[in-house]
């Protein structure tokens, strides 16, 4: 049964090949069928694998397709590996992926490059599946780079606008910086442990390295670099808001549900290694905390509906990192899954809004749309409730688990928890700011458009609404994967979490929603009067620019780099050789003058030569 693991990426890959080679000749209906159908088949395969896995005793499965690379003592296989963590990931990727593909068949139907879109989407799903079912780091790296490429291609999908191309390149290059760090990590792991096979690697590491050893710290730091780049965490988070230049289903699939969570997956997958380097693990938590706060502040100030969601994605992945950092592995993965549900829902809802309002992105030009766009309203309402961790929605359970996990950490635990709670407060504000501004109040434009919706677009939304509401009751089968970590967490949970804290965690997001209501719906407070304060205004513009990271990087890296490449356009090494040329031309000019044609001059020079020779012979 588990041999069909290889079929998982095969279907999307076949879909990609078909569309790539024959996309130009197929009718649109056929393209949509192939594009979405291949993912659907893949989902069925995933189910067929998962069912026996869950009903069985949940043991890991390995299946080596063939040996990829074998040089000397280095060997890497096309090997697939299935355990609880992988099960969650493949279900999210194929399940949510299928829904988004289905949605796209409606959303993209008018685009001239319909087949290119689905070809790359399929390639993306294939790469993402390879990433999560790889049994060794090199194959994981293949998937890792593959999704990066697809992300690049899809962000720049509407390539005629140079802005989109810029955003795409920014995304690719920024994540490449992280990938490079990860590649160095791979080199280090291989040279120290002699293998890249994940399971044996983890065993070797635990055998050979002590807790807090230099190698463990170096290796985890380098892997963390890769994760931070892919998951848009501090300090490599700047690419994700710009990545919203792509079509909205892309944002839902790649930049919310799957690819950006690859970093979380990587750390969770390598968690025994991180446990060997507690300092780095703490760093993961701090990065997560800092990112979630910074992105939360920024999200409150944005106008573009997709950028708000992008910053909220960064912020939510910050929560996942926080969870990873405090050792609440399963909570993080749980949040990864619920986040995939509600964020995909939000993005697809935003897609409906945008498509209905003729590519309007500015939320302040909408308003009062709940009657006009009922399905989108419903998705936003449910998605935002889950995002803001409204009690008993999916987001509530997962975020709660992470925060409880944070409390379990000795020392800084309380501060981490507090930070997370503050973040939750802002989550409440920005998520409902979006809902209130877009769907309530006065209509500020686009009065006449009706909602663009069809079965293909509505069905995924309904399914996701259900999942976003009830996803919190799913039990993810990762206990075996994180067995010892979970045991530790449970032990701490007993005594450290009081009812008071539970209450705080429930109330704070509600407070956030309330504040948002007072500002944006009830009009008790007004943003414009707040903006009259110079401090608020400065803060607002600072937050609006994403805490100035873009400017900082431009100043620190991009400008010097551009200057450096401009300054030596002509290749300074060449001037050395040009110098030789100039020298020999000069020598030629000099010696040409000596060729005067004057016979006596020639004779004299011959005589001088003879005299020199003779005197050399005679006097020396």
């Amino acid at each position: 049964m588990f041999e069909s693991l290889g079929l998982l990426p095969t279907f999307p890959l076949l879909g990609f090949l078909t569309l790539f080679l024959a996309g130009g000749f197929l009718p649109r209906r056929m393209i949509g069928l192939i594009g979405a159908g291949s993912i659907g088949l893949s989902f069925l395969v995933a189910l067929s694998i998962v069912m026996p896995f869950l009903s069985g005793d949940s043991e890991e499965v390995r299946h080596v397709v063939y040996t990829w690379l074998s040089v000397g003592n280095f060997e890497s296989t096309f090997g697939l590996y299935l355990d609880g963590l992988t099960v969650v990931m493949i279900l999210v990727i194929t399940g949510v992926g299928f829904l988004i593909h289905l949605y796209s068949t409606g959303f993209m139907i008018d685009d001239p490059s319909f087949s290119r879109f689905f070809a790359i989407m399929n390639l993306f799903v294939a790469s993402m599946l390879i990433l999560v079912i790889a049994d060794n780091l090199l194959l994981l790296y293949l998937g890792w780079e593959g999704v990066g490429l697809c992300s690049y291609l899809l962000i720049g999908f509407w390539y005629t606008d140079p802005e989109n191309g810029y955003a795409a390149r920014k995304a690719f290059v920024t994540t490449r910086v992280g990938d490079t760090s990860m590649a160095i990590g791979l080199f280090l792991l291989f040279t120290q442990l002699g293998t890249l096979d994940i399971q044996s690697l983890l065993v070797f590491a635990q055998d050979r390295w002590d807790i807090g050893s230099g190698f463990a710290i170096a290796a985890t730091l380098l892997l963390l670099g890769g994760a931070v780049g892919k998951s848009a965490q501090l300090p490599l988070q700047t690419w994700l808001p710009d990545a919203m230049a792509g079509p909205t289903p892309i944002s839902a699939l790649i930049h919310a549900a799957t690819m950006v969570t690859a970093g979380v997956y990587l750390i969770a997958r390598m968690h025994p290694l991180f446990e060997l380097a507690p300092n780095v693990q703490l760093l993961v938590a701090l990065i997560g905390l800092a990112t979630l706060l910074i992105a939360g502040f920024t999200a409150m100030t944005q106008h573009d509906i997709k950028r708000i969601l992008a910053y909220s994605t960064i912020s939510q992945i910050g929560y996942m990192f926080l969870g990873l950092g405090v050792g609440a592995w399963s909570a993080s993965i749980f949040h990864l899954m619920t986040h995939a549900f509600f964020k995909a829902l939000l993005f697809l809802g935003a897609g409906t809004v945008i498509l209905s309002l003729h590519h309007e992105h500015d939320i302040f030009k909408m308003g009062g749309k709940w009657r006009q766009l009922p399905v989108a309203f419903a998705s936003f309402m449910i998605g935002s409730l889950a995002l803001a961790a409204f009690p008993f929605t999916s987001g509530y359970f997962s975020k709660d688990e992470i925060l409880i996990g944070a409390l379990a950490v000795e020392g800084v635990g309380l501060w981490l928890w507090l930070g997370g709670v503050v973040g939750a407060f802002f989550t409440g504000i920005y998520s409902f700011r979006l809902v209130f501004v877009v769907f309530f109040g006065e209509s500020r434009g686009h009065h006449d458009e009706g909602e663009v919706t069809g079965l293909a677009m509505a069905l995924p939304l309904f399914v996701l609404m259900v999942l976003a509401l009830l996803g919190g009751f799913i039990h993810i089968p990762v206990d075996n994967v994180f067995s010892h970590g979970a045991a530790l967490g449970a032990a701490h949970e007993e005594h450290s979490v009081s009812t008071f804290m539970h209450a705080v965690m429930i109330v704070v997001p509600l407070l956030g929603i309330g504040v948002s209501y007072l500002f944006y719906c009830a009009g008790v407070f007004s943003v414009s009067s707040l903006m009259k304060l110079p401090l608020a205004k400065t803060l607002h513009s600072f937050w609006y620019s994403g805490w100035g990271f873009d400017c900082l990087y431009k100043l620190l890296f991009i400008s010097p780099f551009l200057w450096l490449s401009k300054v030596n356009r002509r290749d300074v090494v060449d001037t050395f050789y040009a110098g030789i040329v100039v020298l020999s031309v000069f020598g030629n000019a000099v010696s040409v003058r000596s060729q005067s044609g004057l016979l006596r001059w020639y004779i004299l020079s011959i005589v001088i030569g003879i005299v020199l020779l003779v005197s050399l012979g005679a006097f020396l």
Partner: protein
Amino acid sequence: MSFLFYAGGAVALISTLFVILQTNVVHALIYLVLSLLAVAVVFFSLGAPFVALLEAIVYAGAIMVLFLFVVMMLNLGQTTREQEKAWLPPRVWLIPVVLATVLLSGLLSSFPANSIEVTEVGVMEVSGLLFGPYVLAVELASFLLLAGLISAYHLAKSR
């Protein structure tokens, strides 16, 4: 015989000096003939009568006469003498003389101190070698002369 050697040598040196100092071509030629004849005497004093004769006949006789004919043909008259004087200001002598002196002193310092027992090496020995081991060189010399003859004819031909 040593008297002959020194006398011939002195005459040769003095007349050669006049050759290079003269402004009149014909006078210079006469001095050159004198110089060559003096060298012939030196040859004779060194016990080489055959080459002494050849020097007198071929060099001083034939070749110099050839020179004379050409000079006459060119008809370089009084104007040329004036020109020669103008071409030879004292400063042009400086560098060549210095160079020649350096060369001479260089050569001098490398001479072995030795003496020559003058014995006559006559026609017999020379011709014996000439038609023995050196016969190929003689043939080559004849080729050279033939080539010289042809090219001289060709070059001097008026077009």
